[in-house]
């Protein structure tokens, strides 16, 4: 049997060994992330059938859980590590041609660390271990935002770092309180004993942990860093931050709320928070003229939708939220990748400078259009079944409140369509003002965009590809007792 610990150990080892490969030849450094992520993709695919039956529990150090740190590769963990591997692999192929200037060696190293951190967060079964991987993810993303060394990049990285540092400290305080209450750090062990203490002494650590995680997950009052950081980072990193990092944050919130605390009275609050995040994100995106800022605000909106769907807390709702995570990762990665080369060729982020680019760079423009239509939720693309599932789940709840929520979400979708159509119109239906030479993106950038577009259309046409794993992932979140029994035996 393949051991899930390889999903973390191999990329981590490769990241540390990357400078050594640099001694052999400077040219092979940039292929190391591709190798690492291809490995993760294969291992994740191999693990799916086994993880669907029973969560794979790996104890580091050999003892039985609750002692020692353990990894839990259940359906949720494998689903997320698969998403991370797919998007990480495609973006690392893209970076082969996109990243040319500066300290490329450090870029590829930090890139691998970011992905290792994300994989670790989704696979771990120990809450302090989650914090450690969380910090690996955060620190490498602070550094990568500032990678270009330009004014805007360094400044937004600084903002991101200050807010992220406060968030991580709050998370650690919450973890410390949980340890003080239960004397254990194992998630399943905490979850088993959570009912034995009064609800007020549970509430305080819950608030600390949710606030700490919410900074990275960009939930509404805590997302001031996101538009700056996502728009100032290199486009490949924006794709990773938007497509993976904030989703991992949402995963961590879901794991804490559903599995550890089982906080049923908290679900409606999540719905409300998600709705607020969605509306604020979409409305801010609408008023942007800078395309990357627009996409960053659109990410906030999508996170709101995901949090809302998780807050519905029925099996359809959670499955819809996880489906929306897949859809958003693929679509937003495609959008940022295509925008990256359009910006590279026009050397401007303003939407007006994109006029007439559809004739000059047909493939990249088509990729952008597919990504935009998928995010809006047009039928042949993956955004349609995911949004449909969320609406269906909210209506199946049968409460008038949720019908009102859905009305607001549809308004948000209309706003989303409006601002994306503005860009698509500029790309295809407007004449270019200054007729300059603009080449198509290189082949190493076209391939990942093509594969992402293929995945978006493929899953959109045939959602059955993912529904099985989504269903078992949703039941892992909702059936806490099974999860606890699976780990503690």
């Amino acid at each position, binding site marked *: 049997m393949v051991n899930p610990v390889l999903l973390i150990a191999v990329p981590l080892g490769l990241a540390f060994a990357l400078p050594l490969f640099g001694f052999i030849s400077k040219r092979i450094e940039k292929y190391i992330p591709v190798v690492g992520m291809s490995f993760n993709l294969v291992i994740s695919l191999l693990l799916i059938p086994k993880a669907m039956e029973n969560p794979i529990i790996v104890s580091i150090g050999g003892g039985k859980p609750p002692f020692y740190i353990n990894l839990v590769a259940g359906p949720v963990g494998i689903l997320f590590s698969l998403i991370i591997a797919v998007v990480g692999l495609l973006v690392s192929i893209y970076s082969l041609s996109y990243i040319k200037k500066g300290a490329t060696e450090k870029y590829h190293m930090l890139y691998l660390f970011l992905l290792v951190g994300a994989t670790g967060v989704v696979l771990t079964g120990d809450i*302090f271990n989650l914090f*450690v991987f969380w*910090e690996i993810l955060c*620190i490498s993303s*602070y*550094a990568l935002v*500032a990678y270009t*060394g330009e*004014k*805007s990049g*360094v*400044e*937004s*990285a*600084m*903002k991101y*770092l*200050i807010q992220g*540092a*406060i968030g*991580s*400290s709050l998370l*650690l*305080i919450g*973890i*410390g*309180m949980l*340890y*003080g209450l239960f*004397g254990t*750090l194992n998630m399943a062990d905490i979850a088993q004993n959570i009912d034995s203490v009064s609800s007020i002494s549970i509430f305080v650590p819950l608030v600390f942990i949710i606030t700490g995680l919410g900074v990275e997950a960009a939930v509404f009052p805590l997302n*001031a860093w996101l538009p*700056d950081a996502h728009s*100032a980072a290199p486009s490949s990193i924006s794709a990773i931050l938007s497509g993976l990092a904030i989703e991992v944050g949402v995963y961590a919130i879901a794991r804490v709320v559903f599995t550890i605390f089982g906080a049923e009275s908290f679900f409606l609050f999540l719905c409300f928070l998600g709705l607020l995040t969605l509306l604020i994100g979409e409305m801010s995106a609408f008023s942007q003229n800078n395309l990357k800022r627009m996409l960053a605000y659109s990410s906030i909106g999508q996170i709101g939708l995901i949090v809302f769907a998780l807050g519905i807390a029925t099996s359809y709702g959670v499955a819809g939220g996880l489906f929306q995570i897949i859809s958003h990762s693929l679509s937003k990665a495609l959008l940022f990748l295509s925008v990256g080369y359009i910006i590279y060729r026009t050397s401007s982020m303003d939407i007006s400078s994109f006029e007439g680019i559809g004739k000059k760079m047909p493939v990249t423009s088509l990729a952008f259009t597919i990504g935009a239509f998928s995010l809006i939720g047009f039928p042949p693309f993956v955004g349609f079944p995911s949004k449909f599932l969320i609406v269906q789940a909210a209506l199946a709840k049968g409460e008038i409140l949720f019908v009102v929520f859905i009305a607001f979400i549809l308004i948000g979708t209309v706003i989303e369509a409006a601002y994306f159509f503005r860009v698509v119109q500029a790309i295809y239906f407007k004449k270019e003002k200054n007729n300059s030479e603009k080449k198509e993106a290189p082949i190493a950038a076209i391939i990942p965009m093509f594969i992402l577009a293929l995945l978006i259309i493929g899953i959109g046409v045939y959602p059955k590809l993912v529904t099985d794993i989504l269903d078992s992932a949703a039941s892992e979140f909702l059936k806490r007792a099974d999860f606890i029994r699976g780990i503690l035996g």
Partner: protein
Amino acid sequence: MIDFLSHYIYYIGAFGLIFIGIFIILVKHNLIKVIIGISLLDTGVNLFLISVGYISDGTAPIFSSPDMKAENMVDPVPQALVLTAIVIGVAVLALALSLAIKLYKHYGTLNLRKIKEMKW
């Protein structure tokens, strides 16, 4: 009152440091002071973690002589957590300081009021 203080003094100290740290981060305009605030915040969190596992008059959790009892030993797990948290804090501080140097090169100042090319 004195009983309360002597019992909770470590928690009071820890949360005092945490609040001072957050206050500095929110109020000060000099970037170096903000970074010092982050450092104080980290220290407060570490002190909090240590005090979670502390027993008054406890000994280190090492059986250095045969008549030592496990009941009198402090909990070693929070200490392991604090070691990890200190390392993470050092990494964050080092990165913050190097970013501060970069910012100073670009703007010629560390005043956060004057560094605002991007809107908050």
